């Protein structure tokens, strides 16, 4: 057995965890931008807290998928085929969300923006819900035959445990987004973010604890919770306490640890399986019966060791460049029309469709 196989399992887990830590608050901001923002200036301020960041964050998902393809092609093939329709939904949610950022401000019409706001919110809820269902399915088991092919239907994916996991991730992302908004906004919006975070915290804590116990029981290895599972429970309780106690930076750190330990818990309890077969445990997909050859893993290891630290370095720098809080006042209509280009003004149209120069 190549020792690179467990290493690559860890890399995949790290990529999924990184995706959720970063895109988690993007999802949260997407869900909450209407509540925290209230009016157009506020909504724009909320969206602009993640404006420069969300696109780079979403790449973590692409790389997690591509990493599975390269290191565990059998896993990638079975999982993505099994989740086919769920992935269509997920892609639709992510696409709609992504273009909503870009497009909502590109026309100055209330109805246009409202449409994109609704789509942004819906996409931001649906995406973590579906990914939660998908990751949980790996652990609780799906009908997979001896040839590693999925034999179930679309509805087989929505087991109670999977749905619970999905809802848990939605809540954790929402709380993570709320603590992020506390850190990145000012004045009234910051206050509203606190109120939202306080309201979400107890429910999220309850769901996370339920999720951890259910995950532990599903994995069914030992009686006692393992370190990661304990960490998740501890983190979410700390987060709830810090939210009530108004500790801005630490609250965000605690939700970060919560979201990370929830994802790692799934991967830790799954190993060495990568996809459990509910048909017959003998058909389980494991890291060994799905992995790439030793040479491919070696090549990919070199690549990941060079590039992942580099990516972390320049993404960290990006967060440093955009460390400033975003305030609602920057987007007040008094400062000019709400076009995305502050220096561009809309052309004035004559009735005959000809443009007249700016006055």
């Amino acid at each position: 057995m190549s020792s690179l196989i467990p290493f690559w399992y860890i890399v995949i887990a790290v990529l999924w965890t990184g995706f959720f830590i970063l895109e988690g608050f993007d999802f949260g901001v997407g869900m909450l931008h209407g509540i925290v923002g209230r009016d157009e200036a506020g909504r724009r301020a909320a969206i602009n807290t993640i404006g420069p960041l969300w696109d780079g964050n979403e790449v973590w998902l692409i790389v997690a998928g591509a990493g599975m393809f390269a290191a565990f092609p059998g896993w990638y093939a079975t999982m993505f085929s099994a989740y086919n329709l769920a992935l269509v939904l997920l892609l639709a949610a992510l696409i709609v969300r992504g273009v909503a950022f870009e497009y909502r401000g590109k026309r100055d019409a209330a109805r246009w923006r409202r449409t994109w706001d609704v789509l942004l919110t819906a996409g931001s809820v649906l995406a973590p819900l579906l990914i939660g269902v998908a990751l949980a399915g790996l652990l609780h088991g799906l009908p997979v035959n001896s040839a590693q092919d999925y034999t179930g239907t679309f509805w087989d994916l929505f087991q109670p445990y999977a749905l619970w996991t999905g809802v848990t991730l939605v809540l954790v992302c929402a709380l993570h987004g709320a603590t992020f908004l506390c850190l990145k906004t000012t004045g009234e919006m910051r206050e509203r973010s606190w109120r939202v975070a306080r309201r979400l915290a107890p429910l999220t804590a309850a769901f996370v604890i339920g999720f951890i116990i259910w995950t532990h029981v599903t994995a069914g290895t030992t009686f006692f919770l393992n370190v990661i599972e304990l960490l998740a429970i501890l983190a979410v309780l700390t987060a709830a306490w810090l939210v009530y106690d108004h500790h801005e930076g630490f609250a965000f750190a605690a939700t970060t640890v919560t979201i990370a330990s929830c994802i790692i818990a799934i991967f830790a309890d799954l190993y060495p399986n990568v996809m459990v077969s509910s048909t017959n445990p003998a058909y389980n997909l494991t890291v060994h019966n799905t992995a790439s050859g030793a040479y491919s893993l070696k090549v990919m290891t070199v690549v990941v060791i060079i590039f992942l630290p580099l990516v972390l370095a320049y993404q960290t720098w990006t967060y440093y460049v955009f460390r400033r809080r975003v305030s609602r006042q920057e987007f007040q209509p008094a400062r000019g029309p709400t076009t995305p280009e502050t220096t561009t003004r809309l052309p004035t149209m004559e009735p005959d469709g000809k443009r007249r120069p700016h006055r």
Partner: protein
Amino acid sequence: MTNVDLARVEFAFVTVNHFFFVPVTIGLAFLTALLQTAWHRSGRDDYLRLTRFFGILLVINVAIGVVTGLVQEFQFGMNWGAYSRLVGNVFGAPLAMEGLAAFFLESTFLGLWLFGWDKLPKRIHLLTIWAVSLGSVLSGAFIMAANSWMQHPVGYTMVNGKPQLNDIWALFTNPVFVWGYAKVLFAALVTGCMVMLAVSAWQLRHGGDREVFTRSARLALILLVPAILFTLLVGDELGVVEGKYQPMKIAAAEGQWTTCQPCSFSLFQIGGGNNDQTPTQIIEIPHLLSLLATNHWNGQVVGMTPLNNQYNQQYGPGYYVPNVFIQYWGMRVMAYLGMVVLVIGVWGLWLLRRKTLATSRVFLWVAVWGAVLPFLMNTAGWFLTESGRQPWIVQGIMLTKNGISPTLSTTWLWISLIAFILLYGTLATVDLLLMLRYSREQLPPPRSEADADAPVPAVRY
């Protein structure tokens, strides 16, 4: 339709759509970086205004390029499970490298560029747009290496019936990759130039700032002519390389059923497809096919019938001829439209020299509509490449019909196909409307003398 047909239609649909945005991104990112560099060097306000103007068009495109790229990344596993399982060992590596080395770079630095105008020192900010351009160019390299491996597999050994990677460098020295990648880069530059030219031409026709948009039209034209020439030349060499490794593809592109030597190139023909092998009307240029396919005046091109017989011997009974109609016309649409683009480019340069570009209304009208041409060329080119590989999904290793996820239901495939058509239809419409709207937008106003040293305001959502 069978499951394989449905999955192929879906893949073709999402890929063709994705590739509307990719070349625009590669081309425009490079051109925008050039414009910003010109501003940086000369300090002329015109260049800054153009950078901001075309930057918005770039951003609209990248947004859709990224989200449709996500679909591409998932498609292999969703519908082509058996394929992914068999070749992931080789094919997955360049894909993962693309994400790690290119997508992160492109997406992160686009955010920095767009929102960092007033937050970064000028020189660093200039570097961010070059990083975006580099990311887009690199991503093309990795995905072309993966695609070229499907056309001409290299760098592997067969272990238990599965290809196992044993030489990663072979993927990047694959002649199909070297020439194919060069072609994609030049075609992307052509696309970017044609879009920039069309937008400038529209502005010049409709009272946009004459001096500024003549400047962008000039930049587009000066790069366009060498870019299209290289596209055609590299394309010709790629034809020779493919003729060597995929002779069936080249024979089908000419509708050549029997072996010929020397071979003439038919400009136009009716019939001669898979069902009626004798064409009814032909205009021929002697020796041209020999030259295109082999680089020799009297080169031999083996016909599809003898090739099919040979493959039957080699791979077992079957029909190894791709759709000849698609091959024949894919090749011609691509090449003929390339000639039209070349003519537009030369015509524009001639007008530039005579300093009448901004007033030549006929040329400007042609240039506006010329924006459609590179998209048709690119799509025709991909049909030629991908359909010409059929019936193989990986040449000589796996047949397309064996690549599909085996337990996928027809209903699922229909649902996902329709979902993607609706989604992409809406996206394309919105994107086109916004592109048109912003192309017709006025330039950002010039900055006053007093502002010249002040930071440029950032773009925000």
